[in-house]
């Protein structure tokens, strides 16, 4: 039975997550058909069926497995094997094996490639044909196409440059022999321009011309110094430890830069949370532990209710249109190792506080485990972010574009408050609402924030 294993999709990949099976268990699949989406540390990639047959899924969606772990088998309808070779075995997915394939040297597990027969056969060099077999190995006619989802054919130089630049080779199109990714492709990907088909690019300026001894000159040539600089110039950066951005960090970087283009303003308001604290204490008596709401869960509920009442607060700019999304989906910022994600409580206005509490717990746990699916992090109309647990009193958050607003929640803490002419001690929390001023104006934002504060100061309203 040909087995499929968790492929090594990048140099740094140690494990991968089955994001989505495009084909269902028991489906008849054809070789080359998109089969499964796998998320790595850097990207989500689609892996194709390595053979014709009936798919039998081993690894479920959401499973995170080590490279080389079995994820499926492909057999015929009766369950018998259809191929003679295991496919996408760990060894085959190894980058070195990939290179071997690219250079036309068959490996033990290459049976499925099929197109390389004869490439390893020694032959006369140079043949009467203009190309000797040694170089024929680099010609497109001989090398197998590098299209299989588990293989990335790339030259060592291309791999080196990509690794230094933190570039995911799966995003690069190879224009070398047999589709191999070569230096020009990586450079093109880094510069954003397509690779020039016609090569013979001048070498980097750093390559000093060597000293040449014309034939017959008396002096032997100065040898080129053996110590070469790294292939990617680094400029004048200080020495230090260098780590390529993860895919997540690249996305955050891009999104934050985009969000910074939004003309925004921020409103602040203190909320008396004395009653909210009492309500939470009461709910502890009524609810199992995994449904007991945090202050933040109550805020999510309050925001959802307020948006339902004033849907325009969720309207966003789309070209020359304003779009008010259907459904009140609230994003909740969650800190994860090496970044930040915003899973979404869908239809939060339709959910009770205990339901929201349980859902946010589950989303946060799976977010930190890296097993959230993309659709669980999409579609929020407005977001809530909270640094109260870190002792922060107040802060202004960056809008999670294209959403129009984000509510930043500070800690709830006892403060002296003037109440009816007396200074009293109350629990107080500061909310900061940042909005996209292209879409939302001051009075609207203030009214909205006031409503959120009102709901939080009357927590029984959150429980209806």
């Amino acid at each position, binding site marked *: 039975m040909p087995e499929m294993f968790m492929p090594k999709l990048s140099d740094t990949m140690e494990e991968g997550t089955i994001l989505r099976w495009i084909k269902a268990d028991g489906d008849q699949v054809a070789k080359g058909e998109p089969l499964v989406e796998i998320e790595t540390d850097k990207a989500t990639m689609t892996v194709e069926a390595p053979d014709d047959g009936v798919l039998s899924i081993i690894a479920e969606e959401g499973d995170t497995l080590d490279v080389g772990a079995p994820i499926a088998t492909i057999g015929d309808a009766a369950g018998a094997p259809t191929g003679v070779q295991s496919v996408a075995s760990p060894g085959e997915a190894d980058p070195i094996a990939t290179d071997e394939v690219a250079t036309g040297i068959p490996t033990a597990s290459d049976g499925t490639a099929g197109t390389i027969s004869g490439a390893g056969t020694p032959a006369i060099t140079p043949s009467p044909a203009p*190309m000797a077999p040694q170089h024929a190995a680099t010609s497109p006619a001989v090398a197998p196409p590098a299209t299989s989802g588990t293989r990335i054919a790339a030259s060592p130089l291309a791999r080196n440059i990509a690794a230094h630049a933190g570039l995911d080779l799966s995003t690069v199109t190879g224009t070398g022999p047999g589709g191999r990714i070569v230096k020009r492709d990586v450079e093109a990907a880094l510069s954003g321009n397509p690779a020039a088909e016609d090569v013979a690019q001048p070498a980097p300026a750093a390559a000093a011309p060597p000293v040449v*001894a014309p034939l017959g000159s008396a002096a032997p040539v100065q040898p080129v110094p053996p110590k070469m600089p790294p292939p990617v110039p680094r400029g004048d950066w200080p020495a230090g430890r260098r780590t390529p951005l993860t895919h997540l960090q690249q996305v955050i970087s891009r999104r934050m830069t985009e969000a910074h283009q939004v003309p925004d303003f921020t409103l602040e308001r203190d909320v008396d949370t004395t009653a909210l604290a009492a309500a939470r204490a009461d709910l502890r008596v009524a609810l199992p532990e995994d449904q007991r709401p945090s202050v933040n869960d109550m805020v999510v509920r309050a925001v959802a209710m307020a948006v339902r009442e004033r849907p325009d607060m969720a309207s966003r700019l789309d070209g020359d249109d304003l779009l008010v999304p259907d459904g009140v989906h609230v994003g909740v910022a969650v800190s994860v190792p090496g970044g930040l994600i915003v899973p979404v409580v869908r239809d939060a206005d339709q959910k009770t506080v205990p339901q929201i509490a349980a859902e946010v717990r589950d989303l946060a746990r799976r977010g930190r485990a890296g097993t959230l699916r993309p659709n669980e992090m999409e579609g929020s109309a407005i977001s809530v972010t909270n640094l109260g647990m870190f002792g922060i009193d107040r802060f202004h958050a960056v809008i999670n574009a294209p959403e129009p607003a984000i509510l930043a929640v500070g800690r709830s803490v006892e403060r002296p408050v003037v109440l009816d002419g007396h200074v009293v001690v109350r629990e107080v929390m500061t909310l900061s609402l940042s909005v996209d001023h292209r879409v939302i104006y001051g009075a609207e934002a203030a009214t909205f924030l006031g409503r959120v504060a009102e709901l939080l100061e009357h927590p029984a309203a959150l429980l209806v």
Partner: protein
Amino acid sequence: MSTDTAKPVAYRDALNQALREELARDPDVFLLGEDIAGFDGAFKVTRGLLQEFGPQRVVDTPITEAGFTGLAIGAAMAGLRPVVEIMTVNFAILAMDQIVNNAAKIHYMFGGQVSVPIVIRMPGGGGHQLSSQHSQTLDAWFAHVPGLKVVCPSTPEDAKGLLKTAIRDDDPVIFIENEGLYGKKGPVGGPDDLIPFGQAVVRRAGTHCTVIAHSRMVWVALQAAEELAAQGVEVEVIDPRTFRPLDLDTLAGSVRRTGHAVIVDEGWPEYGISAGLATHLYEACFDWIDAPIGRVNCADVPMPYAKNLEQAALPQPADVVAAVLANIGRGIA
């Protein structure tokens, strides 16, 4: 430098100058080989030396390669500096036991007490319709053996300067000339211009691909470089000149800059000079190469006699052009 160094000298005459100058400089130097004295040598490299230095120092031998090579090794052990001419590399096969088991081993096996300062000259290469047995390129046979130095000059200047260095070297030197180069003319150095071993030379600078070639193949590579330049491709042609010792730094430095290498070798492809160089370069340049190292070799067959087949079997400039274009990812124009 004397005045006559300015005028072009044929490769065979450059060798002749080196022999004459070293015979005159050091009385321990003597020559021996088949037909080198009365007949001036099969390729006229020793022309006039019998008349100038006499039969004690320019010695005709019987057709006994193993015998006179062994005799010369013994003379070298005893303190003389013999320069052996073997008519072609194809006949050195008869002397391989002496070369491999004695010349290459004695210094090592006697703990350095004895040296073997011998030079064994011989031409290799094909292209003259001498068929399978007399057209071979066996550089790799000697380069395979620790204890030997292996020198393959491509120009008159190198032929002279490297031969003088070989004669003055205290270790056994295999000095491989090429039958197709004896008439090649060029400038040469003077009596004191020695060319050290282990220094490759850049014959032509370029940025797109490194082409490594030695002996006659340097000229094939340079012609290919001209044709490639007309297509906008600038290759860097490097001549290693000696394989033991090998100037890997220069070769690897170039390959790291260009990211591409093609090795042109008149020898056979299997387990030969090109294979050995390619291994060195893969090890030294793995993270710098952008394509598998290309090789252009003699066809993996005994050399055909028929002229058209012989030409097809030997590396030609067009083969180098095709190999370079394939290596850098350009089609053949």
